[in-house]
């Protein structure tokens, strides 16, 4: 059966992906260039029995999606830089309290109000380190309108599977451009439903530190328990015991590490025999692919490493390639002044040169600029 091809805006595709994944609540606050996600959800949610609310600010928006998730609804919020900064305290809450939610950050030019209508990739580190304290973070990084849909579905799945907030880290170009999108049939993409606890209510330990995963009971489902943003014990009540809080914090962070292979998705393009790598995400990765193809055309053995998960950082993938191939250098094009590059340098451990290619221009980095950097490694 031929599928219907739509021509859709990236932000709308995120909304459709969320609905496909079973999202039934959106709490947000408008901000360019993410607003179309909210607008689409405002229209679409009631059609599937869900609710939309525009809260008074981003802090309340973030609070509302956590609350809705606790009450059983898969929940989405969307924002951009300034809103991301404001949401950070409550994002940390969701991380510590293991509440699944999906947060779309459509990156624009920062810092501060910066360049509201200009794209960037400058929130990469903020997504990982923006909230205080040690915490787990997952971020997926789509590069096309189709991936806006697919990766949003994956983001919801990861959120449920690992009981944590998941970022969809995209940018003003991918978010606002239009491109073909094939909406999968129901059942075609995996959708992970939130498991329900099966134990007796009085035995329910919502934060059992000795288990990798405990289903999150919805408020009102007969499992009465306590949630707190203080460090807590397996039963959810505050504890001052540093041994317990160390154990719990390590658990929720290492859980991601342990499941690296399930979480971290990377497209490797022509890396098999590559001597020069380009490491890029999102719209920069599209330029990079263009550049790699051109490099190959002129006989340069270039390859592209394109993470679809940037947090946890795809270090094992990189490591493997660096151990296998004799890599002369890695080019890291990013629309910021150097963020992923630092991580690549850390992982490279001196095994090869690592060169950032930074840009704050409002258009994507040009393939020719990347090609030139590739050439320098030849």
């Amino acid at each position: 059966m031929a599928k219907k091809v739509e021509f859709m805006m990236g932000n709308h595709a995120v909304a459709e992906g969320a609905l496909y994944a079973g999202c039934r609540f959106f709490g947000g606050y408008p901000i360019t260039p993410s607003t179309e996600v909210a607008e689409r959800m405002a229209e679409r949610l009631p059609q599937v029995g869900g609710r939309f609310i525009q809260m008074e600010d981003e802090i309340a928006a973030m609070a509302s999606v956590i609350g809705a998730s606790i009450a059983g609804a898969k929940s989405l919020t969307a924002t951009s830089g300034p809103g991301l900064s404001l949401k950070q305290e409550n994002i940390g809450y969701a991380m510590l309290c293991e509440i699944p939610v999906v947060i779309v950050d459509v990156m624009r030019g920062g810092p501060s109000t910066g360049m509201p209508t200009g794209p960037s990739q400058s929130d990469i580190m903020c997504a990982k380190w923006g909230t205080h304290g040690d915490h787990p973070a997952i971020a997926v990084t789509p590069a096309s309108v189709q991936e806006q849909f697919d990766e949003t579905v994956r983001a919801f799945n990861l959120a449920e599977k690992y009981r944590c907030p998941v970022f969809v880290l995209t940018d003003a170009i991918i978010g606002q451009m239009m491109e073909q999108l094939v909406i999968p049939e129901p059942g075609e993409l995996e959708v992970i439903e939130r498991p329900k606890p099966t134990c007796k209510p009085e035995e329910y330990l919502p934060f059992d530190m000795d288990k990798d995963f405990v289903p999150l009971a919805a408020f009102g489902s007969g499992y009465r328990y306590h949630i707190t943003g203080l460090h807590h014990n397996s039963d959810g009540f505050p504890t001052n015991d540093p041994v317990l809080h160390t154990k719990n914090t390590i658990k929720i962070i290492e859980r991601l590490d342990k499941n690296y292979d399930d979480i971290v998705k990377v497209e490797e393009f022509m890396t098999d025999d590559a001597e020069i790598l380009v490491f890029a995400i999102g719209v920069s990765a599209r330029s990079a692919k263009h550049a790699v193809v051109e490099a190959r055309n002129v006989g340069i053995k270039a390859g592209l490493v394109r993470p679809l998960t940037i947090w946890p950082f795809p270090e094992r993938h990189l490591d493997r390639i660096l151990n296998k191939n004799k890599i002369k250098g890695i080019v890291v094009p990013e629309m910021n002044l150097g963020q992923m590059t630092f991580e690549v340098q850390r992982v490279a451990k001196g095994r090869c040169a690592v060169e950032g290619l930074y840009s704050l221009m409002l258009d994507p980095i040009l393939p020719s600029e990347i090609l030139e950097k590739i050439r320098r490694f030849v």
Partner: protein
Amino acid sequence: MSYDYAKYLRKGKLPHIWCAGCTYGIILKSLIRAIDGIGWAKDDIALVSGIGCASRLPGYVDFNTLHTTHGRSIGFATGVKLANPKLNVIALGGDGDMTAIGGNHFIHACRRNIDLTIFVFNNNIYGMTGAQYSPTTPKGAWATTSPYGMAENTFEITSLAIGSGASFVARTTAYHVAHCEKMMKEAFQHKGTSVVEIINACPTGFGRKNKFKTPASMLTWMKDSAVNIERAKNMSPEELVGKYTIGVLHKVDKPEYIETYDTTVGLKK
């Protein structure tokens, strides 16, 4: 025994963390009696708080309880309610939590008139962090951050609620245990956002340094300065100096948010 609280208390959690003489424990008891009186099932109640001494309350009672971030209880509560409107959702917190850092969420809940019950535990100070002034610390009073006396004007919490559109606004005190229970029950019964300001005593943070020698003297002060709204109507302004009214101060019919939303978007015909 006038009432057995055990049914609603979580096992093994007492003594609670509140100081000797802190009146939050008294309110907790009024709350339990009010909930019992209204007959809600424990599974159907969500109790949401922010951060502060008051906000520790949910930990002691056997409902769905959510202790969130400072000032944000109402935002969380709004999400809980929208995702499952069948839950009876109560948001509570101290005067700081609700009206300082949480002020914006407070006024917007009042505006929306979403069906939440909001309890503001007003003890005129930031208790948990050790006695810094709050938006309700009386002019001239001592606090660690007003060592020369409080210089800021204060909020009238109930006026703030009314001004922002709340449809049910009441005031009571920790001293008036039966009245408090009654106000809570009326708030529960009200459809829409209901706000109850509950005057409380923080002997540790406020009383000690502001000439209240004992916790009991703070309760006596409540007894002496609270005037029932009905009685107040017949009192002259002079008689009311230094007093405050208790009772239901404001109650109007106003469309509830979720109902309006559901009807508007076609979720409900």
